[in-house]
């Protein structure tokens, strides 16, 4: 047996880790003893989403390393230890802590460092950079005492850093040397539009400014003096003036480096020493350093292929980008500056809606060479496909960027793409790979994402992915049947519209006019739910009673033994000692098992049907009302104590939570809805795991939507920032109404949004920009539901006819003898089957 060779990877950043993950996925894992040096105190994490650290994502959540990854694959990780030198003759690497390792193959994945211009004073206190989690911690610490923050550099990263400063509650400036923002990606007009948008958000932009010195400030820690004589007082100075490859190790061991830095590599990512590779941001290919993660990932895969002895080439990478900067869509594709010989330019500018678009096409108008989009990047996916896959343009290419007023479609259908067309550029997934995953059984977006990784990076391709999925499924003969059940040939959304437009008030009417048969346990509750959302009549009215799901029929949650649990509303989780005592007394009197729920309320278990009205009578007398825990409806609005008590609180999260819960309580929806409100970005209420999450910031409320816990947890997406309360409430009204109207049955907000063509961006265009002209209706609908709210239990116990059903037997007062409790930890619980047998024996005996 041959000895294993040693492979050393220097740098465990995004690309280094991607390399390791691909390596252990291949047979090479058996051939190499793998060792990696990681200078940072933690293993690889997602730098691309670094900024989300400020909106509550933890270092743990940012990690790119699966639990136990290194151990499981036998990789030795030297954490917090920097490789200090390479001896190429002896083929050894020596670390700062003195570890020395002989290598057969060496991979440099050392990344880059932020360039700090050598202006005098650049190393003063609170002059910071933006690259690592430690940098962010330093920023957060500095923001505690400071009021003003300034970013030096108006590129992609600079603007992202500016957003972070805003989120930290600082008055924010951006200082750019070039005459426009994002000089690399945008042209003048695009840069100007971006500037206006960003200034509207409250950031002051200074372009064409050359900083000459940083010195003591009068009101702030620092003062920046510019070449033109102007000055700017600021506490924090954040340098984001570009990156420089970390090639110091390569330089000292004599590897070839570029004139302006970067480790020179060939198409196999080999350096000038054939046993040493370089990948990621430290590598210089064809005179280029790629400051994006996707090309680095491609390099990593190239090296794995090369080590396997296969044939792989790194041949450059597409630098197209789409991102959201402070809520502004910006995208740049290919040759945005029209540098290609003979290129023609079309541009569209709408000053009113602050949209700027520009197309760069080839001389013969056949192919798209590049594009710039500011303010509306919805066409990005289509344009990128035209550009990357050399698809011939339509006769009038400008139709691609002009607003289409008629219903003509200019998007590229999925069938226009070839199998080799790249759909997801983050993970390099082609249409062919997606189609074969679908052939092998992926039927949903979720499965497809898990299987192919497509749309799990920046997510820019998810709409396109969905259309490929739909088109492939229907080709395979899965007439994607969206009928709700055999009784109605309609989707839930169709039924909702029928009920609304034809003003249908009962299931029987709907069945007679649009359905067949008697109905079933699918369509009945779904229609019952729609009727309740739309007309808000009591769900136990004779017409509606038979439609309700088990829990709704008895306004309580059925448990495994047929008993029920009772959950009174405790708005925002706030409860006085007296109310708590009242609750305890009811629990004690009826011998109920009591437990605190995850939604900050109290659940009382073990109530028999006949006890429910008595229990509720007492609860209502004590001042409680129904918690709707039994319904597909708003459950809870969880909150932290917020600014009222908490040292860090920025706003009154409890107050807002109570207001929201009272506003939306009783709203019937396709599935349950959960809210939470946190008083600051520390996020103690876990708002980002809810359908609707709200976090207080210095600039107002930040709104997150479409998160959930449960079986498939999903982080909520940031939907709008810096809202005042009336705007916040209006936005939530619209969001919920739209969800209630258009979601499928039993579809949580997360799945609803993920399956929506256009996803989050589309949702924003409907809810925020009122693209469909629906918002007024949506608000009215919500107001109607709010105005017609009733406590379902209060109405029920006041109505003899409704109470008649609350007994086990219609013809006897006996309780159900099958309900047997035993005691555990001082409370009741249902007897298990063995215990039950024992009871039966005792009864017979």
């Amino acid at each position, binding site marked *: 047996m041959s000895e294993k060779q040693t492979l050393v990877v220097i740098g465990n950043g995004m690309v280094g880790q991607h390399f390791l993950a691909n390596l252990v996925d291949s047979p090479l894992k058996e051939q190499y003893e793998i060792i990696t040096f990681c200078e940072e105190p933690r293993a690889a994490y997602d730098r691309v989403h670094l900024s989300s650290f400020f909106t509550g994502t933890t270092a743990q959540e940012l990690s790119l390393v699966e639990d136990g990854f290194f151990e499981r694959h036998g990789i030795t990780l030297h954490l917090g230890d920097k490789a200090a030198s390479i001896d190429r003759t002896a083929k050894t690497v020596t670390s700062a802590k003195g570890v020395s390792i002989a290598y057969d193959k060496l991979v440099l994945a050392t990344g880059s460092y932020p360039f700090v211009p050598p202006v005098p004073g650049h190393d003063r206190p609170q002059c910071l950079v933006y690259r690592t989690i430690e940098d962010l911690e330093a920023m957060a610490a500095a923001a505690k005492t400071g009021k003003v923050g300034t970013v030096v550099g108006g590129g992609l990263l600079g603007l992202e850093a500016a957003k972070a400063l805003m989120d930290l509650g600082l008055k924010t400036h951006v200082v750019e040397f070039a005459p426009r923002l994002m000089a690399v990606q945008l042209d003048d007009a695009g840069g100007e539009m971006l500037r206006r948008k960003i200034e509207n958000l409250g950031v002051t932009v200074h372009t064409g400014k050359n900083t000459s010195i940083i010195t003591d400030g009068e009101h702030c820690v620092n003062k920046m003096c510019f070449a033109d004589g102007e000055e700017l007082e600021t506490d924090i100075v954040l340098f984001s003036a570009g990156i420089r490859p970390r090639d110091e190790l390569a330089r000292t061991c004599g590897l070839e480096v570029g004139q302006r830095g970067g480790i020179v590599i060939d198409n196999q990512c080999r350096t000038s020493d054939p046993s040493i590779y370089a990948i990621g941001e430290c590598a210089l290919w064809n005179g280029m350093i790629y400051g994006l993660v996707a090309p680095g990932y491609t390099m990593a895969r190239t090296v794995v292929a090369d080590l396997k002895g296969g044939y792989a080439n790194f041949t450059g990478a597409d630098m197209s980008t789409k991102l959201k900067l402070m809520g502004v869509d910006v995208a740049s594709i290919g040759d945005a500056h029209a540098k290609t010989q003979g290129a023609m330019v079309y541009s569209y500018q709408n000053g009113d809606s602050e949209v700027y678009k520009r197309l760069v096409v080839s001389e013969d108008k056949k192919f798209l060479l590049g594009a710039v989009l500011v303010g509306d990047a919805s066409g990005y996916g289509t344009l990128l496909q035209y550009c990357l896959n050399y698809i011939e343009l339509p006769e009038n290419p400008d139709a691609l960027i002009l607003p289409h007023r008629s219903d003509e479609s200019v998007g590229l259908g999925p069938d226009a793409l070839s199998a080799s067309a790249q759909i997801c550029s983050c993970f390099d997934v082609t249409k062919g790979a997606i189609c074969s995953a679908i052939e092998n059984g992926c039927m949903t977006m979720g499965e497809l994402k898990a299987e192919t990784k497509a749309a799990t990076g920046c997510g820019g391709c998810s709409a396109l992915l969905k259309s490929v999925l739909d088109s492939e499924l229907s080709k395979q003969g899965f007439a994607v049947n969206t009928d709700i059940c055999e*009784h109605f040939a309609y989707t839930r959304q169709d039924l909702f519209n029928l009920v609304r437009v034809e003003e249908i008030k009962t299931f029987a009417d709907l069945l007679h006019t649009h359905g067949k048969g*008697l109905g*079933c346990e699918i*369509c009945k509750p779904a229609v019952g739910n729609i009727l309740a959302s739309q007309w808000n009549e009591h769900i136990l009215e004779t017409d509606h009673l*038979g439609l309700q799901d088990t829990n709704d029929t008895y306004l309580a949650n059925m448990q495994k033994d047929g008993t029920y649990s009772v959950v009174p509303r405790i708005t925002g989780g706030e409860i006085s000692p007296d109310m708590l005592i009242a609750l305890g007394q009811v629990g004690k009197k009826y011998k109920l098992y009591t437990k605190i729920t995850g939604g900050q309320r109290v659940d009382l278990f073990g109530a028999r049907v006949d006890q429910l009205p008595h229990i509720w009578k007492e609860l209502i007398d004590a001042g409680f009302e129904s918690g709707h825990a039994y319904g597909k409806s708003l459950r809870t609005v969880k909150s932290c104590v917020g600014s009222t008590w908490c040292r860090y609180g920025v706003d009154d999260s409890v107050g807002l939570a109570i207001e929201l819960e009272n506003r939306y309580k009783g709203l019937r929806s396709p599935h349950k809805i959960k809210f939470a409100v946190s008083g600051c970005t520390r996020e103690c209420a876990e708002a980002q795991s809810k359908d609707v999450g709200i976090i207080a910031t210095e600039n107002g409320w930040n709104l997150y939507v479409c998160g959930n816990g449960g079986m498939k947890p999903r982080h909520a997406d940031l939907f709008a920032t810096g809202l005042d309360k009336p705007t916040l409430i209006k936005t939530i009204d619209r969001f919920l109404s739209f969800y209630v109207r258009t979601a499928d049955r039993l579809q949580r907000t997360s799945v609803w949004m993920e399956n929506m063509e256009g996803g989050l961006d589309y949702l924003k265009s409907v809810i925020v920009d009122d693209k469909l002209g629906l918002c007024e209706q949506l608000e009215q609908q919500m107001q109607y539901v709010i105005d017609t709210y009733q406590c379902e239990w209060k109405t029920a116990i006041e109505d003899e006819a409704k109470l008649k059903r609350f007994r086990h037997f219609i013809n006897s007062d006996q309780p159900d003898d099958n309900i047997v409790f035993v005691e555990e930890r001082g409370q009741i619980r249902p007897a298990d089957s063995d215990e039950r047998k024992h009871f039966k024996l005792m009864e017979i005996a």
Partner: protein
Amino acid sequence: MAKWIDVCSVDDLQPDSGVCALFEGEQVAIFWMPEADVKVYAVGNYDPFGKANVLSRGIIGDIGGQPVVSSPLYKQHYNLQTGVCLEDESVKIPVYAIRIENGSVQLDLSSLSHHQEPAL
């Protein structure tokens, strides 16, 4: 020979829904569909999968033309005429003969099956 016994009045029934009656010591789920061709059904109230007396609280309707109740616990369907479970034909719940006579709901004593628990 049928022996009809009154168990309750039609007014005690819930349209398009169920109630449970105690009949000679057995729990009987009674469903009433005033608009359908066959208007009343009676089956055992015990759910053999959920092992609880809850079927009268299930939603009724039809699946492929068979009248059914779906269990409120784990959603299995039972044919209201035969008692057979649609998801697992080896499981069957008792069915009873039932009629409405002059405003009163009657069950047939001779259809009383001393039901055994199906082996699961």
